[in-house]
């Protein structure tokens, strides 16, 4: 009789399927080994592809300080005083406009983005000569971040989806899709980062670490994850629960 009724939501739990968990774990381990072996080649690809796309003929690919990865060796542009000044002026004006708005989640999100530009503009206005990075060093940072993303995403994905009962191929597809998407985003980000830092100056480089870096990665990861949960929930029709 119990089988015929879906348990009340207060006491529901999910039928555990050990073989499914083991399968996902094995797939994740394989993916991890694969990425561990491929990551140096992937970082070489990022540098080389960016070099080709942006016609950086005089730049070369060099090894990173740690982890035997590769990075594009190139130089960025320091902002002119007037550029830093106007950037500071405009971003401060935007901040004032934002501050007088009524509380809303977008207000505080935009204040965060604007603050990054304000701090960066102010820094390049006053302490330009102390900027501790070259574009190569910044790219090395970006490479570490993106490479750790590729290594972490399969693990985080697997840990996040084990709670939900759905067809095993959907779980495998989810993990694969997340990693492939991350690779795509990482490649585009690398190119855009080099383009902006060479053409518009270092002022906007912090944006790629504070907003378009790990924070952005977590947003798209959670977006895909939420779709996965929604689909799993729709598929299940309440049959995955046990008393």
């Amino acid at each position, binding site marked *: 009789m119990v089988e015929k009724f879906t348990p*009340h*939501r*207060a*006491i*529901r*739990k*999910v039928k*555990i399927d050990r073989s499914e968990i083991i399968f996902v774990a094995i797939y994740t381990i394989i993916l991890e080994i694969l990425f561990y072996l491929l990551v140096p080649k992937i970082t070489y690809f990022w540098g080389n592809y960016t070099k080709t796309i942006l016609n950086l003929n005089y730049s070369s690919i060099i090894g990173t300080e740690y982890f035997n990865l590769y990075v594009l060796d190139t130089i960025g542009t320091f902002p002119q005083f007037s550029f830093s000044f106007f950037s500071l002026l405009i971003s401060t004006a935007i901040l004032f406009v934002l501050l007088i708005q*009524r*509380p*809303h*989640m*977008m*207000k*505080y*999100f935009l*204040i*965060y983005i604007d603050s990054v530009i304000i*701090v960066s503009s102010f*820094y390049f206005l006053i*302490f330009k000569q102390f*900027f*501790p*990075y070259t574009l190569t*060093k910044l790219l090395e*940072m970006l490479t*570490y*971040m993106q490479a*750790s993303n590729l290594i*972490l995403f399969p693990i*985080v994905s697997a*840990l*996040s989806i084990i*709670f*939900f009962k759905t067809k095993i191929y959907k779980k495998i597809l989810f993990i694969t899709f997340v990693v492939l998407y991350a690779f795509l985003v990482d490649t585009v980000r690398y190119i855009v980062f080099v383009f902006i830092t060479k053409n518009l100056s270092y002022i906007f480089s*912090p944006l790629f*670490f*504070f907003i378009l*870096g*790990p*924070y952005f*990665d*977590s*947003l*798209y990861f*959670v*977006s895909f*994850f*939420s*779709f996965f*949960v*929604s689909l*799993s*929930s*729709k598929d299940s029709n*309440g049959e995955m*629960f046990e008393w």
Partner: protein
Amino acid sequence: MVNIIIFISKVYAYVLMFILLIYTVRHYIFSLNRVFGKQRISYGDIIDSDLPFVSVLIPMHNEEKVAKDILISLTLSSYPKDKLEIIPIDDSSEDNTARILKEFESKYDYIRPLYRNSNRKGKAAALNDALRFATGDIIVVFDADYIPGKGLIRELVINFIDPSVGAVMGRVIPLNISKNILTRLIDLERIGGYQTDQQSRFNLKLIPQYGGTTGAFRKEPVVLTGGFKNEILAEDTELTFRLYLMGYKVIYSNRAECYEEVPESWIVRARQIRRWSCGHNQVMFLYVPKIIFSNKLTIKEKVDGLLLLGVYFLPLLLLIGIVNSFILFFSGAYFQFILQSVASVSIFQSFGNFAPFFEIAVGTYLDGVTNRVKLLPILGINFFFEMWFSSLGFLDALKYIISKREIHWQKTERFRE
């Protein structure tokens, strides 16, 4: 000097990373337990005719929009009326609340309103006055915007059959979920907080929290220890820890569901978060040493209690973490910068919302919510809003603790038409 700042900044990055890691592991364990673990149930299914006499307290200040709804709901309750008294507390209302209460008082003999016009305003002061007036051994508290179901009072009260139970908490579900994006996001937080967090804390015999509404408590220990503390904004959190330190337990009854109205405007939500954060942090300042040195709590309960009290302190740590990221980035300490930024603003960013994304997802899955869960990434944007107002709440608490100024209670605006 610069070197010292950079050194402190690097140390802070490691400390923050460690704290966030502890919280992540804690919430992951909660999620695993809720989905796969054995679910503890409250005593709600026990059928017993020997029910205790119950006083239901409803603090009200300018509640004309919602007063009727809750009183009608309570008159429809299946709890034996000869064992029930309902005490709506009119706390110096300037609208039609008093008139509505008089109307109900004349119709139902078990509705006995308390009209207050004291200088001491606020929920704690109102509850203390009502406790002197109440004759029940068990006190049930509802906020005025709640709509309790027929069997809710019995479902909560039957738990006191166990003498070790000091308080019982039910599950709160938003009534106006589909009003706008804010109400939908609050609903997600509630799902994560109750369906996953509270239930797993109850399963694991940790510290489920008495939430001050949709809950009940034993009157005697509360009155004997001085009633509710007027100087604390989170009287519910304070009561939870007071009861635990006296050797009582709190039961979470996931099935005892009650509907509430959640804020529909951001400004009201901002005030609410700030008030909760202030109260919660006041309790943290008062109870951390007491929890550590208590001989009534198990090690598990102590650890959970301390982590629970730190929940509204964490947003401030994250805010400082963002400032710290700037120092690390511009000083060239890129290793610590990567470590901290990957940790604090990526995987853990949803902590600004007090429930990580997987905990909310687990709750929605168990609830059968199929569409609203797609809003999860928006919580990552909302993170900055909640982080800011929680941090302000922490500073308020600090101010009250240092200056010992009297607390000003801010009522949550109602939206019901």
